[in-house]
């Protein structure tokens, strides 16, 4: 379970960034998120939808404790991200569009590294590794350097790395953005599998097709503000346009 309450995040701007904002901008900070609240429940897929630069990644980084809130709070599996960041991280798996792998390591070494960082004992690690490598088909390239793997293979390794510690919560930050159709499909399958296992799934995207394929709950974020939050069904039921995409554009333009 993730509970986000009145979450705001400001970033300090460098002198150069302030100059780039133009003469009209007089502040020293920029609001990346403003008073955002939502809940993600176990066994459901929560989709965070928004155009580029809307604040999706900031929200997910706050959930994963990479960033600290300026105000408001995030509670993950009952732990406050500010007070107990390590406990939160033990329960979260984070997957980005960028595979985030070390090219000079092998899949074996990389997955073991993350297992060690999560404090898995040898027996648990071996069993979990065997299970994941078999399901994802990693065994055949487990000892090859990651730099020499195809993007599909890398994605599989990335998934194994994300869930080696069997987290209760899995966060996908535009995980399919840089992938081809085949690799994207494997991520989508994986997201569904996580939901099936009763995990809390948070998924950010700007691809409408994926929204309709996966979402149970939906939040639309634009310029750091939440402009819609509810179930996906409610969203489609109250649409004033003919498609999800049109409705999204309408809401963004109206905001």
């Amino acid at each position, binding site marked *: 379970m993730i509970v986000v309450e009145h979450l705001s995040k400001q970033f*300090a701007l460098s002198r150069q960034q302030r100059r780039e904002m133009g003469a009209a901008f007089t502040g020293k900070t920029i609001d990346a998120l403003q008073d955002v609240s939502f809940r993600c429940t176990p066994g459901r897929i929560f989709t965070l939808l928004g155009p580029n630069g809307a604040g999706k990644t900031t929200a997910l980084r706050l959930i994963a*404790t*990479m960033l600290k809130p300026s105000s408001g709070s995030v509670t993950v599996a009952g732990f406050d991200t500010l007070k107990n960041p390590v406990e939160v991280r033990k329960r979260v798996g984070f997957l*980005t569009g960028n595979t*985030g*792998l*070390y090219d000079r*390591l092998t899949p074996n070494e990389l997955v073991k590294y993350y297992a060690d*960082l*999560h404090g898995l004992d040898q027996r648990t690690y071996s069993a979990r590794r065997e299970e994941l490598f078999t399901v994802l088909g990693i065994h055949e390239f487990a000892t090859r350097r990651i730099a020499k793997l195809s993007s599909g293979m890398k994605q599989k390794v990335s998934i194994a790395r994300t869930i080696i510690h069997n987290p209760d919560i899995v966060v996908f930050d535009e995980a399919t953005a840089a992938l081809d159709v085949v690799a994207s499909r494997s991520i989508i399958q994986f997201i569904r599998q996580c939901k099936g296992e009763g995990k809390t799934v948070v998924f950010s995207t700007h691809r409408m097709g994926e929204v309709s394929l996966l979402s149970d709950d939906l939040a639309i974020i634009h310029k750091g503000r939440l402009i819609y939050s509810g179930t996906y069904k409610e969203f489609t039921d109250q649409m004033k346009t003919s498609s999800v995409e049109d409705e999204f554009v309408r809401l963004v333009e109206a905001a």
Partner: protein
Amino acid sequence: MKTFLTIFRKEFTDTVRDRRTLFIMVIFPLLLFPLLFGGITKLQVSQMKKVEEKILRVALINAAGAPGFEAMVSASRGMRITPPIVADSAQPFLQRDSLDAVIIVAADFRDKVESLNAGTMTVMFKSGDDYDIVKRRLHDLLRNYEKQLITSRFAKLKLDQTIVSAVHVEERDVASIKERVGKVLGGFIPYLFVIFCFMGSMYPAIDLAAGEKERGTIETLLTAPVSRFQILLGKFAVVVLAGILSAVISMIGLYTAVRQVKEMPQEMLTAVMGILDVQSILLTLSLLLPLTVFFAGFLLSLSMFAKSYKEAQSIISPLTIVVILPVAIGMVPGIGLTSTTALIPVLNVSLATKEIIAGTIEPGLLALVYISLIVLAALSLWMCTQWFNREETIFRGT
């Protein structure tokens, strides 16, 4: 501790698998000295030998004015008298390398010499990159001729030649050969160690911070249940180890190179091997450790600030000059280790190493160098920790 070791092991594996880092850290320092000493010294020695043995083509103008001179030149080994030329054509001949030297005996040479004055001989040659060996050989020839004339003058005057010397200077240098060679080489050795230390730390620092940001692995690493300080410490330790390893490897390279050069005089070889003794090496390394910690903190901070590997490289690479400067100042004669210079980073290591190698280090000043380096290293680690905890730094450009 277990987490630190996990991070350290991974970062070290990752670093040594990077060909660029491996080259700068191991291959370059290991091969540089054997190539530098072995290759260049051998080449230099063979070139000098060639110039030394070269038959000089010498044209004499008005040689008859200097009795016995032409015969002396003909009898000299490695000199050949060319057919006579006129004085005006001397310069073009020399410039075209058709001649190596032209010696012009002044018209009044015989009269001057006979009246016990000094006669003039003009030596024309083209100075170049032959280590001035041609000039020296010509001077030796003329000095010998002068000696001959002076001897005959003293004989004619029935005087003993020793009456012209009133003071006989006897030099006794009390500095040991280790001290003498140490003061010369001592300036050069810290130069190498500091540079290799810096260069060895540079690439791992760039790769483990800016490289990690560029590859997007920093995000996934920050979601692991470990503190940022542990992550930083793991990276830090690898950067320090890389710097120290690089310096040690350069020392091995230097040792190998010195052993290889057969042309080095035995006395010098013994002195150099004496410099590379265990105590000097350990003391030098103990100075390099806090210096490398300082470098590591400084380099990691800059690298973390950069958005990409390339940006980090362009920020850090020019700093090599900044590091070279104080080390180069340490090589200037007259600049020694004092209570002031002991506090100046990098320069203090350079000067202290010089004293250690010469065996003249003062314990009080050495302690001051350690204190200043340890304070600097601690400050650098603290600064780096602060920097690593700043969201604006870690996520700059992402």
